[in-house]
C-alpha cells in the first residue's frame, strides 16, 4: 500500500476500483437513455438470429451453411410465398435464408475486423506513446502515410491485390479492411496514453518500481478503454457496411454466399420496377440499416456518457 506524506492516495492505489465505480455509473447512464436501450435491443436481436441461424434456416448442406440454396434458376425474382417467406432473388436464391445467415456474416465481419484493428492499433499506439522519442516520431509518420489513403480506394486496391493470392475471399477482404483500419485506433490510444502518462499516479507507480509494461497494462490502458469502446461500437456497424458495400460491388465472397450486400447486388438489376420487386431491397437493406443503427445508437450513447461536457445535462 502506498502511503505518501501519511495520506493514502486513493488515486495511486486504487485506479482499478475507481474504474469499476465509473463503469457502474456509466452503465446506469446508458440504461437511462432510451436510444441506447433501443440500440442494445437491436444488437441482441441480431446476435440471437445469428446464434439460432441453424434452427431458423436449416442449411440443406450443413458442411456449407453459407451457400444460399436456390430453387431452380429462373432469372426473375419471385414474391414472398409459403416456401420462401421473403421471396427469392434473381437466380431464385432464398432471401429469408440469405438474411438469416447474412446476419452471421455481418456480425462476423464487424467483430473480427474491429477486434483486429483495435488490437493492432492499440498495441502500436500504446507502445509508440509510452516509449516515445524517435520511435513515436517514426510511427506517427507511418500512420500519416496510411491515413493519406482514401478509405474506399485503399480497400479496393488491397482487395484486388490480395485476393488472387489468398484462397479464402473473406480473408482477403478482412486483410484489406484491417490493413487500412488500424491507424485510427493507433492515434486514439496514443493520445490517451500520452494524456495519462503524465498523471501523478503513473509517476507514483513508476517511483515504486513497477515495471513499464505493468504500468501500461494496469494503470494506463484501462483509462483508454471507454474512448475505444465508443469508437469500436461505431466501427462494428461500419465494417459490416464496408464489407456489404464491397460485396454489393461484386468484390465480396462470391456468388451465392449468404450476405446482405450480395442480396442487394442481386436486387440491383430490378430496381426500376418498384411495385413488383420491393421485397428484394426491403429485407436485406432493412437488416443492414437496423444492424448499423443498433451499433451506432450504443456507440453514440457511450460517447455522450464519455463527454464530460454533455454529462449531467
Amino acid at each position, binding site marked *: 500500500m502506498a502511503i505518501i506524506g501519511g495520506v493514502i492516495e486513493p488515486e495511486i492505489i486504487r485506479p482499478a476500483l475507481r474504474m469499476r465505480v465509473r463503469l457502474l455509473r456509466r452503465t446506469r447512464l446508458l440504461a437511462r437513455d432510451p436510444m441506447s436501450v433501443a440500440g442494445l435491443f437491436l444488437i441482441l436481436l441480431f446476435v440471437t438470429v445469428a446464434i439460432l441461424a441453424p434452427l431458423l434456416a436449416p442449411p440443406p448442406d450443413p458442411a456449407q451453411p453459407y451457400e444460399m440454396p436456390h430453387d431452380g434458376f429462373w432469372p426473375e425474382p419471385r414474391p414472398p410465398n409459403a416456401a420462401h417467406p421473403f421471396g427469392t432473388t434473381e437466380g431464385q436464391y432464398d432471401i429469408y435464408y440469405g438474411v438469416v445467415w447474412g446476419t452471421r456474416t455481418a456480425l462476423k465481419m464487424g467483430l473480427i475486423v474491429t477486434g483486429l484493428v483495435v488490437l493492432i492499433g492499440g498495441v502500436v499506439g500504446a507502445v509508440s506513446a509510452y516509449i516515445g522519442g524517435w520511435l513515436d516520431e517514426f510511427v506517427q509518420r*507511418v500512420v500519416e502515410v496510411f491515413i493519406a489513403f*482514401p478509405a474506399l480506394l485503399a480497400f*479496393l486496391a488491397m482487395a484486388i491485390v490480395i485476393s488472387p493470392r489468398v484462397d479464402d475471399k473473406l480473408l482477403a477482404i478482412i486483410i484489406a479492411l484491417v490493413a487500412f483500419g488500424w491507424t485510427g485506433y493507433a492515434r486514439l490510444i496514443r493520445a490517451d496514453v500520452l494524456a495519462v502518462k503524465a498523471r501523478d499516479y503513473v509517476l507514483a507507480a513508476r517511483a515504486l518500481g513497477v515495471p513499464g509494461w505493468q504500468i501500461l497494462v494496469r494503470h494506463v490502458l484501462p483509462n483508454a478503454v471507454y474512448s475505444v469502446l465508443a469508437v469500436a461500437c461505431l466501427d462494428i456497424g461500419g465494417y459490416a457496411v464496408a464489407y456489404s458495400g464491397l460485396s454489393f460491388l461484386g468484390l465480396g465472397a462470391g456468388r451465392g454466399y449468404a450476405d446482405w450486400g450480395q442480396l442487394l447486388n442481386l436486387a440491383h438489376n430490378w430496381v*426500376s420496377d418498384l411495385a413488383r420487386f420491393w421485397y428484394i431491397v426491403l429485407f436485406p*437493406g432493412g437488416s443492414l440499416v437496423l444492424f448499423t443503427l443498433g451499433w451506432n445508437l450504443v456507440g453514440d450513447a457511450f460517447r455522450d456518457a464519455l463527454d464530460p461536457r454533455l454529462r449531467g445535462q
Partner: protein
Amino acid sequence: MTTYIVRRLFALPVTLFGLTVLIFALLGTLSPVERATAYVRTDPKTPDEMQRIVEKYGLDQPFYIQYGRWLNELAHGNLGFSKSAAQPVASALLAYFPASLELTVWSLLPVFVGGIWLGSKAATHHNRLFDRAARVLSVTAFSFPGFVFAMVALLIFYAALQWFPPGRLSDWANTAVLSSDFHRYTGMNTVDAIFNLRPDIFADALRHLVLPALTLSYGGWALLMRLMRSSMLEALRQDYTTTARAKGLRERYVINKHAMPNALIPIVTVSALLFAGLLSGGGIVETVFDYRGMGWWAVDAALHLDVVSVLGITLLNGAVLVLVNLAVDVAYAFLDPRIRFN
C-alpha cells in the same frame, strides 16, 4: 506560426514519399510478367516476348531501382496503361476526374447550408424537441448505408416518379455535348453548359446530379450537423458569450456575431476533409447511379482486376488528401489565435 507552417511543409514530401512507396509496394506484389502486361498496350502472345519486355524494362531488378524508375515515369505523367479504360491511366484520370469533382461540388453545397444551419439551431435549442429530432435524424442518416439509400432513391424517384434518371446526361444532351459547337472548358457538364449558354443542358445535367449528390452528401450533412451542434454548444458556454449577453445584446446578435464565428472554426477543418472524402469516396454511389466518374471507373477497374488503374486513382486521390490536410492545418493556424500564438 511560421515555424508551425514550415514544419508542416517539411512533413509534406515525407508523406508523399511514403504514399508512393506504399503504392509501389502494392504494385510490387504482382509478378514481373503481370506488371509487364499492365504496361503494354497489346498483349504479346508468347512467354518469350513477355520475358523480353520484363528484361527490357528491368521489371526483375531490385525494388529500389524499379521504384526510382517508376517515380521518374510518374514525374513525366506516365502511370501505365489502363485495360479497363482502354487508354493510358493518366489520360483516363483527366477524363473522369472532372465528373467526380462536379458531383463533389454539388454534393457539398447542401451539406454546408443544411448542416451548419441545422447544427446551430439544434445547439440553441439544446435538449428541446428540435435538438432531439436532429439527433435521431443524424444517427439514422449515419446508419443508412449509401448503397441502400441509393437503391431506395432509385426506386422512388426514378422507377416510380420518373423524375431523376441515372447516368450523367440524357441521350439528346449527350449528343449535344459531344458535338463540335459545344466547347468543353472544364469537363464538368453544368459549368460547360453555362459557358456555352445552354440552359437546357445545364438543367439536364443538374437533373442527373440530384440523386447521386443527395446520396453522396447525406452522411457528411449529418456529420457536419453534429459537429456544428457540439461546437456551437461549446461556444455558447464560453465567457465571451456570457459577456456579450451581460452587455444586454440581443440573443440573435450574440449567436450570430459572437458564438457563430468561433463555432465555425472546426467546421472549416472537417469540410475540407469532407471534400477530399467525397471526391474519393464516390465508388458505390457512382456505380449505382451509373454516373461515370473516377469512382465508377475505380470499381470497374477493380472488377476487371486492373490493378494499375486502381492504384493510379488511389495515388491521385491520396495526393489530393495530403494537400487538403496541409491546407487545413495552415487555415486552422490562421483562424484560431490559440494556435497562431503558440
